[in-house]
């Protein structure tokens, strides 16, 4: 099976509002995909559809299952963290491990215990006694010990401080990810995930605005610090975004725009570098809130 997740004409309406508007995409195995978009763009709706949490129109296949009708089978191989701090308040660390070990055939108990041993969590602690960061540590310990083929993380670090956020992604990469697994992440904090992503999926107003691997992005988008005397020439090449840093113009070019642009052309304009995903995101989403 090539695609872990494939959507064709995926559509979700809430009343008259179209949250996801007939999107197509494919996510192959062994990728870490960032599903990135502004608030209300349809990211969470897309993920909820893929996890069989909401009904939808169109075709969607997750690990070969239809999430609408085969959710019970699907959940054997999929895990997700929908949001931080959703563990029930009365749950104890010990009971949480026992429970997941009891119901999940792919749960590796020793792995979860090893992970928890590195935190301040104690077996008798209840979720309501934990800080937000500790709740995430527990949730992560549970989820990372599950050998799922697809892991979906929807804003996994929302509301966490920087130390927890850093270690969250580090653990994800070091202890969890391998070539058989696929991870889909949505987040607002693009700059924190860009170094771990292999693929980008920008979503805007319920449509895919950009779908590319990170290598493609690197080849295609180029940021140029244009020297003052070449601004006019640079503008003629139709940058997709332009801003000013310390009096210097920074322009973003799509090398694959109509007509095409070569690196040489751009190098001639000034210092060339790869844009950050955040800058690319802002450029792509220009006018979203206008």
């Amino acid at each position, binding site marked *: 099976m090539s695609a872990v997740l494939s959507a064709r004409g995926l559509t979700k309406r809430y009343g008259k509002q179209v949250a996801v508007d007939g999107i197509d995409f494919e996510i192959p195995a062994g990728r870490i995909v960032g599903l990135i978009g502004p608030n209300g763009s349809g990211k969470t709706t897309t993920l909820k559809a893929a*996890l069989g*949490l909401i009904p939808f129109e169109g075709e969607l296949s997750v690990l070969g299952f239809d999430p609408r009708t085969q959710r019970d089978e699907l*959940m054997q191989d999929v*895990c997700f963290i929908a949001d931080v701090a*959703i*563990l029930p308040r009365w749950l*104890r660390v010990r*009971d949480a491990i026992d429970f997941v070990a*009891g*119901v999940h055939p792919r749960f590796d108990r020793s792995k979860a215990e090893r992970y928890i041993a590195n935190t301040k969590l104690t077996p008798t602690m209840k979720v309501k006694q934990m800080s937000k960061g500790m709740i995430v540590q527990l949730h992560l310990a549970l989820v990372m010990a599950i050998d799922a083929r697809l892991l979906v993380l929807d804003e996994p670090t929302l509301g966490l401080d920087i130390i927890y956020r850093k270690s969250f992604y580090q653990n994800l990469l070091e202890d969890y990810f391998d070539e058989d697994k696929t991870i889909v992440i949505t987040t607002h904090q693009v700059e924190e995930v860009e170094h771990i992503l292999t693929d980008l999926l920008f979503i805007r107003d319920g449509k895919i605005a950009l779908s590319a691997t990170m290598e493609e992005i690197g080849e295609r988008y180029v940021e140029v610090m244009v020297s003052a005397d070449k601004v006019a020439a640079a503008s003629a090449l139709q940058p997709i975004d332009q801003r000013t840093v310390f009096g210097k113009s920074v322009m973003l070019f799509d090398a694959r725009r109509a007509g095409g642009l070569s690196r040489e052309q751009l190098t001639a304009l000034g210092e060339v570098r790869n844009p950050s995903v955040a800058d690319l995101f802002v450029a792509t989403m220009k006018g979203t809130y206008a």
Partner: protein
Amino acid sequence: MNTNMTASLPSNAPTGTGSRANSLASTGMTNLKWLIRRELWEHKGAFFWAPLAVSVALVLVLGGGFLYGIMHAGSFHFQMGEHQVAVHGVPHAMRARLASVVASSYLAVAAPLFLVLPVVVFFYCLAALYDDRRDRSILFWKSLPLSDRDIVLSKVIVALLVAPLVVIGTGVATSLVLLALGLVAAALNDINLIVPVLSDMRLYLSPLYLLSFLPLYIIWALPTVGWLLLVSSWAKSKVFLWAVGMPVVILAILSWFDFLMSRFSGVSLGAKWLGNEVVARMLGGLFPGIWFGEVDKSALVQMQNGLDAGLLLNISYSTLASPAVWIAAAAGCAMIAGAVRLRRWRDEG
């Protein structure tokens, strides 16, 4: 290696599918076991501490009363029917009758526990499929390979089986402690009932009689549990208002209509029928003994020598002859199925 595999494949294939079906069935059972355990973790207070507290209170108050009786009274006061009986060294016949009442009815002392049960289970069912949507923890449960059917089923089992069994167990234990205290207190007051009570078979059979009410209780409680779980699964907020307010308001409107119309014509919307047959079953089914509303009470009045458990059981189970009970229970099951279906597409909020 290669030949080995090809050789073993065909013979393995049928057993493979068989064991897969088996393992699916057994995961269903283990999942249920864990889900029930989960319910008890969450509701330890309601299902264990509340009955235990009532039981301790009963022992303290009633047991304390017995002790007080030993210390302060030379006589033993006893309410029997309408007669207040003060007993000092009682005649033999009287003693035998007293022993008979005690041995057959001692479980009645735990009655308050059986009033706690419906309250606890009522609110448990109401919150069962709603609270985890409100605090969004439903998303955690939905991230695990658990079917909606198993989740709802675990709650039904807890409401209809686990909670009553806990209360029955606590009730029997409490009654036995109080019986022991009472017997000792009475003995110290020269009314020694220990031997006649201990040699009465009904002393030992009473817990079994109590237990044999459980299937009947489940049948009567099904419509209420079904209704509450359905509302709990469906409502976006204010579950209590929907579950209790809606039927009561509908009933009130129909009753008002019937009341007004009865003045002018024989037209009726059947408010009385709706109240007795639908609303009462929907909301009151958790009360142990609700079925006595449908039996001929004259049979009950005649029990002079304590509770006749056999007769009581007989009368109670005779209510199953009425098709309405079965229709209501079937409706309860249908509502539980409805709760499962609604749960399928419910997430937070």
